[in-house]
């Protein structure tokens, strides 16, 4: 694993022709939505830039991000892992284990100080001094801070690292926090999703590797090229939404016809992700195409914005099953009832005073 070896060197060694390399560059440039000169920029970068060392750490997580990542089709994950980047550490898929693996972390930190990318899958729990996630005999949060201090940039894989996800859902006993709560001095690219789409993950890595800088991010730190539109904006069922054609029950005729799942609690209108354009498993399908509403897995705190199958979210401060309508209607009824009683007392007072002459009011108009 030489530090000066470029992507181009590696693929030529593997027997890939110059022609195929050019094709790859064009396709990658097109998939990232780059302009006419994009392909040559990609080619130039891959020919000259040394492969970027990547450290992939795992905190509290379920490994669904890794599972998704290894299914990337464009580019194939083998191209990313074996050629494009230098994946120096990933405890789930690396050959080394134990002290040998740990040694790589220290070696990378020293050798590529300020030059490697730290990819974080999962998040650190802070409760009990981080004892809920021990990695190599130390709390994960310590290791994470140590590695982040020397990294060039940090990628937050998935909703765990970006927002907290299931382990940070109420009541969050381990006090799990998204990584940007403990890494505050490095640029962080958030790639949320549970898991994120494979092509989005490899796309982000390809971009950073190609241009040596972070992609353009939105206010919340997500790459605009994949997270600037909602599922709803590009959903193929959107015409049914605009027309007012909804699935009313899971087994009704409308469900069979593929009408909009809005009334079934689809979170497409509030979820920023690329599912409705990139789709999953090499573009085969995505949840809505399979007849199930979006659950909003790439959004902040999505576990606490349930139910998944109702349009309005619960507001737990007002009881476990309360939502904006239940609270609003109850409050309106209470107020209208109080006004009716008030009006009744007023009327009775007027009737009782009837016949008597008006008293003189005590005061003149006031400013």
């Amino acid at each position, binding site marked *: 694993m030489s530090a000066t070896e470029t992507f181009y060197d590696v693929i030529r060694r593997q027997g890939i022709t110059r022609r195929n390399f050019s094709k790859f560059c064009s396709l990658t440039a097109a998939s990232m939505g780059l302009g006419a000169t994009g392909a040559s920029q990609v080619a130039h970068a891959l020919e000259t830039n040394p492969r970027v060392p990547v450290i992939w750490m795992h905190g509290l997580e379920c490994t669904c991000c890794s599972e998704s990542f290894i299914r990337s089709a464009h580019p194939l994950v083998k191209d990313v892992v074996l050629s494009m980047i230098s994946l120096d550490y990933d405890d789930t898929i690396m050959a080394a284990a134990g002290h040998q693996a740990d040694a790589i972390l220290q070696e990378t930190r020293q050798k590529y100080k300020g030059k490697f990318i730290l990819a974080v899958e999962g998040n650190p729990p802070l409760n009990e001094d981080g004892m809920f996630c021990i990695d190599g005999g130390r709390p994960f949060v310590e290791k994470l801070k140590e590695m982040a201090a020397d990294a060039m940039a940090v990628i937050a894989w998935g909703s765990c690292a970006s927002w907290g996800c299931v382990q940070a859902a109420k009541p969050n006993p381990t006090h799990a926090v998204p990584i940007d709560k403990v890494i505050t001095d490095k640029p962080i690219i958030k790639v949320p999703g549970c898991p994120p789409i494979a092509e989005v993950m490899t796309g982000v890595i390809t971009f950073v590797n190609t241009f040596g800088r972070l992609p353009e991010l939105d206010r919340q730190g997500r790459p605009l090229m994949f997270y600037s539109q909602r599922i709803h904006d590009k959903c193929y069922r959107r015409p049914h939404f605009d*027309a007012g054609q909804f699935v009313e029950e899971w087994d009704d005729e409308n469900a069979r016809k593929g009408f909009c799942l809005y009334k079934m609690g689809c979170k497409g209108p509030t979820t920023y992700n690329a599912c409705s354009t990139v789709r999953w498993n090499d573009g085969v399908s995505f949840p809505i195409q399979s007849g199930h509403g979006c659950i909003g897995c790439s959004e902040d705190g999505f576990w606490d914005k349930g139910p998944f199958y109702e*349009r309005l979210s619960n507001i737990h401060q007002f009881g476990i099953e309360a939502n904006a309508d239940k609270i609003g209607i109850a409050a*309106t009824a209470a107020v209208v009832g109080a006004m009716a009683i008030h009006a009744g007392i007023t009327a009775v007072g007027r009737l009782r005073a009837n016949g008597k002459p008006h008293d003189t009011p005590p005061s003149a108009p006031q400013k």
Partner: protein
Amino acid sequence: MDYAKIADISELKGQIVVARRTVYVYQAPVRIWHWVNAACLTVLFITGYLIAWPPGSLGGEASAHYQMGYIRFAHFAAGQTLAVFFLMRFVWAFFGNAASKQLFWVPVWKKNFWDGLWNEAKWYAFAVKFPRQYVGHNPLAHLMMFFVFTLGTVFMICTGFALYSQGAGEDSLWAKLFGWVFLIFPNSQDVHTYHHLGLWVLCIFAAIHVYAAVREDIMSRQSMISSMISGERQFRDDKV
């Protein structure tokens, strides 16, 4: 005016007639804004509720209908109209009379205000026989107007435009102006939830507002409803 003659007529019916003082309090821009705002709110309540709970599904081809589209259009159009008029109403506060400024500030530092507030609360609790009379809002109304109506409307305008910006796109003017809302509520589902809760807050406000206006018109010896049409407040004291 020939009071003697009027007195003669009223004497026929056995009633007492008095001269009443009127004050011009609600200037034309305030009145126009009030009724445009009321109309917008009505449209927004109905269409807002229908956006959360769309009517029953339509059959046939999607291309034959645009029901949800029309409902949302009415909501957006009414919302933008409300916002523009609210902005103009705010600007008018700098040029209008004292009553036109009351919507945007509460004189919490004045003892007079708290004293009047307490008296008004007692009036509604049937503990005093007469309310005090005010040219503009009474202190209780003043407080409600500012904290429920004004702040509530500002909240609804900000969250409403933020939600609108999601459809308009990340690079739209609306996203630039109101995108900060999503830094407070990173998951826009929360913005939907609170915007919907805001619907009910303003709905309850409207109900109390109408009740209080009707009741005060009858009970408080000063005109309310006609004042928002003519602009003039009449003080119905027997003695001036």
